[in-house]
């Protein structure tokens, strides 16, 4: 019951935020750049071409009317033609999104798993050598941009040690498995092709780890601080006094409440990873949506810019709602908060 109203509340809020976001994107793609028609045909095209295009693009209508038309099209997934690839923008998105999603999913798993493990170890050995080591490493992880990690990994693991491939999603000579999900590793498994899976996995590893480093560090820091806070709570002392084994206390009573802040931040980090992926996609030549978006921005491909920003915005908002739901499930204070009055 409360869950339903919680979801409803969040959904209404999200629709409002999405509308606001759409206004911002409309302003970016239609108002800020000056004349989008002039931009589309280039500076040297004669004026009548621009005028025709303005008519075609309905740029002579008032801004609110233009916005309404643009919004209706966007809701139907129609963003027009990309000036860069000369294809439908929605088609481009379908093609490039899975590559970025694969990268972000791998990075997200790493952030969660590594961050929680490191943070837990750190909290259990607070102020010992290993804790200090984790803290220093996570400091470096947080302040180093992903593209710096990308370059350093590439030099060490790619060129010096020859452990991992440096460019693309799959080695030459291997045929790409039929695209079912668009995630090459998953497609390879579905096609029953272990060689392609392993190759794709190796290609994925360096960019994903480079992208995940900041998140791993962030998650480790948060897990450490909540967990070491919780370790001093009375209920833990009571459980110890009752003779409950340390292992059980850790896994059963300490981990769950300590993970709530970590999961909230993990969700945000994962969603941000999708859009920040270009920082490593550019270096590893990864054919993802994020890189597509950057190229669109650099070439002032307004239709593509609007679509990519909207896609990332929607994903970000959806992930946030999911995180709130998970946290509400984990945290009885949120889940049952309103239940008292029932």
């Amino acid at each position, binding site marked *: 019951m409360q869950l339903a109203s919680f979801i409803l509340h969040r959904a209404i*809020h999200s629709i*409002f*935020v999405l509308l*606001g*976001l759409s206004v*911002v*994107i409309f302003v*970016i*793609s239609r108002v*800020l*750049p000056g004349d989008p028609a002039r931009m589309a045909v280039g500076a040297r095209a004669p004026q009548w071409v621009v005028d025709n295009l303005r008519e075609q693009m309905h740029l002579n209508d008032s801004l609110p009317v233009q916005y309404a038309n643009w919004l209706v099209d966007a809701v139907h997934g129609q963003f027009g033609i990309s000036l860069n690839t000369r294809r439908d923008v929605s088609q481009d998105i379908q093609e490039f999104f899975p590559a970025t999603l694969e990268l972000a999913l791998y990075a997200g798993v790493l952030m969660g798993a590594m961050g929680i493990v490191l943070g837990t170890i750190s909290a259990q050995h607070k102020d010992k050598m290993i804790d200090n080591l984790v803290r220093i490493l996570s*400091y*470096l992880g*947080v*302040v*180093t*941009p992903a*593209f*710096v990690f990308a*370059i*350093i990994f*590439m*030099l060490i693991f*790619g*060129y*010096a040690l020859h452990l991992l491939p440096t460019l693309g999603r799959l080695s030459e000579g291997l045929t790409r498995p039929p695209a079912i999900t668009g995630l090459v590793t998953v497609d390879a498994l579905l096609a029953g092709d272990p060689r392609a899976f392993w190759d794709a996995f190796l290609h994925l590893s360096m960019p994903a780890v480079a992208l995940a480093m900041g998140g791993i560090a962030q998650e480790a820091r948060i897990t450490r601080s909540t967990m070491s806070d919780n370790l001093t709570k009375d209920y833990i002392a009571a459980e110890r006094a009752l003779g409950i084994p340390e292992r059980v206390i850790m896994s059963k009573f300490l981990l769950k409440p300590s993970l709530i802040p970590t999961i909230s931040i993990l969700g945000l980090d994962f*969603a*941000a990873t*999708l*859009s*920040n992926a*270009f*920082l490593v996609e*550019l*270096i590893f030549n990864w054919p993802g949506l994020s890189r597509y*978006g*950057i190229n669109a*921005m*650099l070439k*002032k491909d*307004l239709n593509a*810019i609007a679509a*990519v*920003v909207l896609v*990332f*915005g929607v994903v*970000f*908002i959806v992930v*946030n709602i999911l995180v709130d739901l998970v946290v509400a499930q984990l945290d009885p204070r949120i889940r049952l908060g309103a239940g008292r009055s029932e």
Partner: protein
Amino acid sequence: MAQPTTSWGAAADLRHYRELERSSRRENFGRAWYKFSRNPLSVAGLVIVAVVVLLALLAPYVTPYPKHAGPFTDFANAKLPPSWKYLFGTDTIGRDILTRVIFGFQDALVMGIVVLALVVPPGVLLGLVAGYFHGTWIDTVIMRITDIFLAVPPLVLALAIASVLVPNLMNSMMAVSLMWWPWYTRLVFGLTTQLRNEYFVKSAETMGASTAHILFKEILPNCVSPIFTKMSLDMGWVILIGSSLSFVGLGTQPPKPGLGTMVADGAKYLPDLWWIPVFPALGIVVIVLGFNLLGDGLRDLLAAEEV
């Protein structure tokens, strides 16, 4: 409302009180500095920031080849690996990378300072107003707008805005600022909603003080230290975001050196000319690390003070 009457005695009291306040402030500062200096990481942060700022300010005098910060070419000395002559090596057209990294600090710092200068006043003002008029339509309008800006990954919108404008440092600073003010609004909003119920605010209201007086003289001074702490941490983050923008070519334009641009250009020459991207990359890490260590040190200090 009745003005408090002033007699000579009261004025002397006031002087005495001010004197006391000054001396206790000095004492507090001494104590804070002592506490700050006990943490080697915070001191390291302060030292890094001080060195980076000094290097950036004195760049034309301390760099070995100041001319290399501009459109300079020397093909005879191009692509040289690090040596005593060129500590960080030279780039593809023969410019000293150490010189360019130090000059790159200038724009990185300008980015941080200008963005914060653009962001803090409106962000704080909106937060004060929304917090003080909590529960009214003013609060709703301001906070819903901040929600929109906080609901999307900041880097993407900043990139989108910067990209449709002419690419240069000023426009990328504007774009980042547009994404950054809501954090200050939210911070100050939270503080103000608590502070407005405090007795000193209530008493100022009863005395008929103007809204401006209450916002700026009663509430704002109590928000200063959290704002200041956030600013010192944000310096690092803004520089980080700025380097990401400059990484894709939106920001400092060549031939001026931008740290992110140098990394992006150098990445093309991996692995043979590794020094071209690696040293600017380390430059970014050092500057962001410095501000983070310093900011964390200040935060610990202020958090301890409040307890």
